[in-house]
């Protein structure tokens, strides 16, 4: 095991897969000579050359489109989109092309396309650079939705993404690039659809992904001081979703708190809550709690940004409600 940064783990994954398979290549804005805005692709141009590491103009629909086309034709492109917000320019290519091709060809055509991008709030980058848009991709059958929270998961999931054959929305978090974590030495692959227990506990299940895993772990540490043992589970991939892990944990703790940075309305948390109520209703000792962002574009002001997305204290409060230690939130709130 080595302790490395999230961005280094991503680079290792790309590097190892490019070395292993000549079909893997990467395109994006400023990713070649400059090494990308988050330094994920640093050094890859020198190692793999200009054919496999390419800068693009600012043309997201075109970039995503040619990535999908290359995947249909049998290559394994990674298209780096600077912010998930900018992926909206390429939604036709993602939703109508990449996601549909396998079915439209009766299962004969595959699209091993990986779009790497990042989302979430990150210290005052305002409304068009702060969104968490996983629910959009989650609601489109045909896409895989991956949201790693740690360097080890980032590496293992990206390597797996580059070996499977369906279009992947690989959603990193801008706040995580410089965070460190232990990554196993040698070949390290994390399959899709297998969640991870980030902290074991018996009193309540906290389900979180991406940066919210860290908020939830902070909350769990504080709850431990209050004598509450929270289990923090990270599905790691939202599609496919490790339902079995979620239901097993809820069966143990009898309580579920789902934490997402994305806005509350139409979120993945709502869908997971509906799965829990439908399949584990009789296990529950309390209503399923959802802690989510406000239904509002994220403002520039740092104090207001903080109010717009879940904080540690919001998770602590939700856990205490589910344990009947505090009053429930009013429906109107």
């Amino acid at each position: 095991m080595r302790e490395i940064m999230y961005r280094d783990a991503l680079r290792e994954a790309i590097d190892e897969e490019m070395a292993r398979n000549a079909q893997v290549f990467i395109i994006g804005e400023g990713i070649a000579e400059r090494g990308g805005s988050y330094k994920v692709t640093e050094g890859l141009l020198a190692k793999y050359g200009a054919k496999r590491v390419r800068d693009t103009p600012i043309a997201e629909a075109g970039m995503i489109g040619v990535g999908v086309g290359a995947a249909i034709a049998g290559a394994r492109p990674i298209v780096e989109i600077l912010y998930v917000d900018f992926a909206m320019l390429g939604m036709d290519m993602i939703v109508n092309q990449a996601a549909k091709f396998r079915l439209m060809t009766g299962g004969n055509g595959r699209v091993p396309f990986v779009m790497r991008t990042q989302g979430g709030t990150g210290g005052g980058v305002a409304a068009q650079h702060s969104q968490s848009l996983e629910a959009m991709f989650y609601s489109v059958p045909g896409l895989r939705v991956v949201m790693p929270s740690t360097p080890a998961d980032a590496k293992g999931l990206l390597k797996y993404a580059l070996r499977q054959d369906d279009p992947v929305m690989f959603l990193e978090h801008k706040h995580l690039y410089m965070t460190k974590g232990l990554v196993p030495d040698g070949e390290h692959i994390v399959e899709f659809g297998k969640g991870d227990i980030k902290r074991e506990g018996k009193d309540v299940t906290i389900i979180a992904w991406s940066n919210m895993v860290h908020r939830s772990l902070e909350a769990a540490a504080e709850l431990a001081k209050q004598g509450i043992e929270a289990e923090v589970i990270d599905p790691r991939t939202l599609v496919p979703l490790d339902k079995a892990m979620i239901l097993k944990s809820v069966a143990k703790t009898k309580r579920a708190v789902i934490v997402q940075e994305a806005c509350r309305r139409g979120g993945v948390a709502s869908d997971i809550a509906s799965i829990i109520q439908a399949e584990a209703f009789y296990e529950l000792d309390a209503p399923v709690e959802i802690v989510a962002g406000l239904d509002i574009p994220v403002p520039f002001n740092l104090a207001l940004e903080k109010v717009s997305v879940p904080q540690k204290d919001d998770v602590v409060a939700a856990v205490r409600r589910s344990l009947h230690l505090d009053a429930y939130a009013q429906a109107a709130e």
Partner: protein
Amino acid sequence: CIAWGADIKRMVAELLQKETGYCRGYGGSMHIADITTGNLGANGIVGAGTPLGVGAALAAQVRGSDAVTVTFTTDGATNNGTFMESLNLAAIWNLNFILIIENNQYAVSTPIGDSTRETDLYKRGIAIGVESHLVDGNDPLAVHDLMVEAVKKCRAGQGPILIEARTFRHMGHHVNDPGKYMPEDKLKYYKDRDPVDRARNDFVEMGGATAAEIAAIEKQIQEEFEEAVEFSKNSPEVSVEEFREFAAIY
């Protein structure tokens, strides 16, 4: 597609929603694709084929192949943003890519002059440094010769190439569109220059085939389609059970 070896039986079966269709009846007329013969599929989203084609050309370049990718698009698609975005990518990367704009001068019922001020669409390629040509789309031999040249140029590293093939429709956009908006005189002008008639005459005139040989080929085509329809009618329906299994991957 047929020239590339596509099986008419499986194409017709797809139109008739049968299990034996190219896409098991899951795709339909808008989405027939056959990866094995290099047909990456038609598209239900106007303009989407251009970036996908550029992507296929990019894949070929990455793997060091001299394969050439051809996308057929239309005048109606040229005002979509991905037209310029992806042709520009093909240009900066010198891809083996040929974009054919079949300019039939109407996007459903909107005449080209209502969609763009510059109706010479090939000029758009020139604007971004792409070798661009205008050809009479109703002259099959001229189109053929230009394509042969374009493929050679791509393989010599001079791609991408844009070809505007100007033509006209003989009827409305779809079965329930009588196409009344097309001016009579223009329609007559182009009908008098029907590319199929022209090819037939040109072949005979140039000594490539006799009228009898062409008639025999046409009879054979007719029979092949009749066979394909018969084959499709006798093909099994799709299985709901298998569809449910397929759905599990999503």
